[in-house]
């Protein structure tokens, strides 16, 4: 898959001397959903702002669709739709007027049929004549997405698209994003909700303190870094574990009713076979067992802590 965005050696130092981005290199593949994760102040929004033309880079080069964002900014920007994190909307304009305005701003001829489709896809059609100020927060968020989609962009940036949006609406938005991907739009989203990245993304990038810590295919990442947890539900409660089991670093939970063992799926030996053997030898019996894969959130927290 070819790159639609290519970021090379990008750095950003603010006037205060704060280094928001440090030598960032990143390629976004055409047609993918890329999730950019990072704690607050990691540089997610700065990175997006530079690519979209809202902030100036201090060093480095960014190509969008092969066009340099500084020397060929018209071509580069016309490919991008941006939904910023904050709810920046007009107040007194109607939904229809503000979305049509965005299309004009991006140099596209009028196309009421397209605007109608965008508004219908985002469940805003019945609000098209309403003033934006009268809409709820979730609706305003969708108006901003409609504005970003008004000029038929090939790339859509969603900066924290579901922050402050209720669960039902969030799932609705995920559907919209998937639909966009199917129509060929490349989507870059930043999020605090790991669940969102896990649910949506094809690839995941983690940024921390202005540096890209990791970029990986989501499933590979989950497999590579994923730890599994084996939970054994014991037949009877155990007050303490025998010495022979100490090196497994087991955890007794539920007042001794369950035994938890964390293991690395990528390790040469998981230790499960010997653990089960040693349990049997120690006379500890169990009724049931289950294994769970660690979530992206666990991986993320680990990465940020160690970077």
């Amino acid at each position, binding site marked *: 898959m070819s790159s639609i965005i290519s970021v090379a050696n990008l750095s950003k130092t*603010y*006037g205060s001397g704060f280094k928001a981005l440090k030598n960032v290199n990143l390629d976004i593949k055409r047609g993918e959903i890329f999730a950019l994760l990072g704690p607050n102040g990691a540089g997610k929004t700065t990175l997006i*702002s530079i690519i*979209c*033309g*809202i*902030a*100036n880079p201090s060093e480095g080069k960014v190509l969008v669709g092969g066009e340099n964002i500084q020397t060929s*900014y*018209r*071509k*580069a*920007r*016309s490919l*991008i739709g*941006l939904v*910023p994190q*904050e709810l*920046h*909307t*007009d*107040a*007194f*304009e109607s939904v229809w*007027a503000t979305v049509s*305005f*965005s*299309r*004009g*701003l*991006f*140099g*596209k*001829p009028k196309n009421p049929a397209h605007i109608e489709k965008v508004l219908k896809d985002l469940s805003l059609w019945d609000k098209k004549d309403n003033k934006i100020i009268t809409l709820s927060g979730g609706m305003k968020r969708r108006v901003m997405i409609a*504005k970003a989609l008004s000029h038929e962009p090939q790339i859509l940036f969603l900066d924290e698209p579901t922050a402050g949006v209720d669960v039902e609406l969030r799932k609705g938005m995920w559907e919209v994003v998937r639909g966009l991907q199917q129509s060929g739009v490349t989507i870059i989203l930043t999020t605090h909700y790991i669940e969102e990245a896990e649910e949506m993304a094809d690839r995941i990038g983690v940024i921390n303190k202005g540096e890209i810590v990791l970029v990986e295919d989501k499933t590979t990442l989950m497999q590579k870094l994923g730890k599994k947890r084996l939970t054994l539900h014991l037949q009877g409660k155990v007050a303490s574990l025998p010495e022979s089991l100490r090196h497994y670093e087991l955890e007794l939970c539920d007042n001794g009713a369950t035994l938890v063992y964390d293991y690395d799926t990528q390790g040469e030996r998981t230790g499960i076979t010997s653990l089960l053997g040693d349990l049997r030898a120690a006379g500890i019996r169990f009724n049931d067992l289950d294994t769970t894969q660690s979530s992206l959130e666990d991986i993320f927290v680990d990465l940020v802590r160690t970077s």
Partner: protein
Amino acid sequence: MNHRAIRAIYLFEMARTWRTLLQSIVSPVVSTSLYFVVFGAAIGSRISQVEGVSYGTFIVPGLIMLSVLTQSIANASFGIYFPKFTGTIYEILSAPISYFEIVLGYVGAAATKSIILGLIILATAGLFVPLHIQHPVWMLAFLVLTAVTFSLFGFIIGIWADGFEKLQMIPMLVVTPLTFLGGSFYSIDMLPPTWRTVALLNPVVYLISGFRWSFYEIADVSISVSIGMTLAFLVICLAVIWWIFRTGYRLKN
């Protein structure tokens, strides 16, 4: 040239005028009519002619300029400040549009409103006093030039302001006094010699003088000096805006 973007900004700004018709058009017309009642009728009846023109007629160009100056600044500064305030400026900055086109959209709309307003006030004045315009083309040229120049100035204020107080400060504390002292209501020849010299430091004197010349062929300073000073201010404003966009001052980090 992204002409659709210029059109979008222009129409968006003009739409704001129609939405706020009372504030944008009706209120300046009412206040100008009050000036005519107070200065033209009440005080003017006690003042003999000024340079061969009745006082009520004499103050018409000054009154139009007073409104055009203040409204150009108010329209343009608010037009660009409001997107900064609400945050919607992100869309302008991320659009495939050049700085020149952004200025053209915002300043074009602000200047259009002021010109319309100036013409409405002129028509209103015609209801109070007899009017005869000696050089209508020059009159329009001065009107357009002033509206554009002060809309550019307003645009600069709108970018510079980081709060509503700053937005109001320059128009209230600088522009209004300069306009009142700029010969809207009198000829600077009526001032004592020392004050006359001081008055010549006021750029608004040149605007009003030139504009009044286009009506009655009477001027405080020569017409070429008036045009020269107005153009000089226009160039200064353009240079400042060029610098703002080149550095991203108050717009881009």
